[in-house]
């Protein structure tokens, strides 16, 4: 038997596998196909204070070993979420992480204040959505804004606050340090890379929003590098995301320094990806003689050091 429980700061997870935001809805559809209580947790679709219609279609473009999406934070708004979705999520027997995005510091603060009163386990601040013009990625590309946003948000809630960072920056380490200074409880790496796909016949972008966020195995090397880089710079727990398709990928992120991992695009190709990957992780650990998944964390031995 392999022990799977992990800690992300003060939050105990029964295992390190979380469903990433935006690729699992609010768990309702996925619950038809697998027992969600087997997961470590679910990150909700990104929420905004008010409902958002999202971007015009098409919203997806296939790329080599990946995809671009330009959903643009379509969501029913925080109120409807709290009323219609959270009770269901809460019943599934795994941790509930709420992914929030705001236009402004005020909006982030208001959402966190309201979430403080709810039975969610953690708040994942989306500082990284490449598909909306305002807030989000702009804030997430500026160390000072990251620090100040998190500091203010932390005044509003005692829930663990996770900062989900964008890879579209010159120095991910600087952003992570800023999040640490601001008081984040964990850092989630990475959101999507900003990309473009063109229909060469029509000479139009394939996506209705022109650009979109690149996800899937194509970005795994970038994500893994950022996790390893940040793990050498900050003392916070890290959550690794980006192109994880199987148990081996997931373990690589633990080795690079992640305490937990999130599965995004893989769930779109295979609805049971999260539970499958957890099984693969424990099988690999067993074959490796590793009795506790947490043992992998941060065991990467760099060359020449």
């Amino acid at each position, binding site marked *: 038997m392999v022990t799977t429980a992990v800690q992300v700061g003060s939050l105990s997870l029964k295992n390190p596998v979380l469903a990433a935001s935006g690729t699992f809805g609010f768990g309702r559809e996925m619950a038809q196909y697998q*027992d969600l209580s087997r997961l470590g947790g679910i990150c909700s*679709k990104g929420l905004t204070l008010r409902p958002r219609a999202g971007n015009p279609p098409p919203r997806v473009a296939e790329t080599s070993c990946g*995809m671009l999406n330009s959903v643009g934070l379509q969501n029913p708004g925080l109120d409807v979420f709290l009323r219609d979705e959270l009770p269901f999520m809460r019943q599934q027997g795994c941790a509930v992480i709420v992914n929030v995005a705001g236009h402004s510091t005020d909006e982030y603060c208001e959402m966190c204040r309201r979430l403080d009163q709810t039975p969610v386990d953690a708040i994942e601040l989306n500082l990284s959505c490449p598909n909306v013009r305002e807030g989000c990625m702009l804030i997430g590309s500026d160390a000072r804004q990251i620090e100040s946003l998190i500091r203010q948000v932390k005044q509003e809630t005692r829930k663990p606050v996770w900062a989900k960072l964008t890879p579209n920056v010159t120095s991910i380490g600087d952003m992570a340090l800023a999040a640490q200074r601001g008081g984040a409880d964990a850092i989630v790496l990475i959101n999507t890379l900003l990309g473009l796909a063109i229909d060469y016949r029509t000479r139009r972008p394939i996506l209705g929003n022109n650009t979109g966020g690149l996800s899937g195995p194509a970005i795994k090397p970038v994500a893994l590098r950022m996790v390893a880089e940040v793990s050498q710079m900050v003392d916070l727990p890290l959550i690794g995301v980006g192109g994880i398709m199987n148990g081996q990928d997931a373990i690589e992120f633990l080795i690079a320094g992640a305490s937990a991992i999130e599965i995004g695009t893989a769930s779109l190709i295979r609805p*049971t990806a999260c539970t499958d990957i957890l099984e693969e992780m424990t099988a690999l650990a067993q074959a490796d003689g590793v009795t506790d998944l947490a043992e992998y964390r941060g065991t990467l031995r760099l060359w020449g050091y």
Partner: protein
Amino acid sequence: MTCDHPIEHLVTVRSSRRLNSQTTVLTLEAPLIAATAAPGQFVNLSCDHFLRRPIGIMAVLRHEGLVELGIRVVGDGTRELAQKRPGDQLSVLGPLGHGFRLEGLQRVITVGGGSGVFPLFFVQQVCRERGIDALAVCGYRSIDESILRDEYAGLGCQTLFAADAGDLDVAGHAADALKQLLCQLPPVPQTAVLTCGPRPMMQAVAALARDYQLPCQVSLEERMACGIGVCLVCACQVREADGATGYQRCCVDGPVFDAEVVVW
């Protein structure tokens, strides 16, 4: 809530039948899908590319546990699928989506354009099973590009074939043929028009149905990823109950929508 409803099926290709240079019918051994699929639903097929490919269900042979899919080659993914050989295996998600609503209908007119005739063939099959009177209109560019004509003719109901090129029953689009049909057709209560095909054709069909005060259901296409409602990439613009427009998911809220709510 925590049932293990199997959604992913590893299925074997039973046979492959080439209809013309661009179109192939694949028959899959997929008893669970055959047992539960409803017309208008689709499957999401693995291929060598990153994303799956959504393909409507053309027919099921429930007793044999077989599912037929009509595939029109438009790019690399459909080319690869059309080249599958008996014995090949592929991963299939399905049946997916919200199909045509046949409950309470006494008569159905299916209006298909191009590869839209595939999923409507399944409608015809089910209408026969349920004793619903069904007529069919099929439109093509030309007789050379026409598909499933024998199959539709074999249904034994009134069937009109239209071709833009003028080399079939009616010269013109499927909507032109529908108009001709509706002119001569004695009205029957609980008649509905169900349509699938190119968007402009469906829009014309919906307008015509409206003129004749017939309810109309349309099957929309949108680029998809998950096919099961979790990623929100397959947004279709619809008019909500309150008159405002919003996005619904083609994959689970559709692909079949009431023509009335579609924002063309």
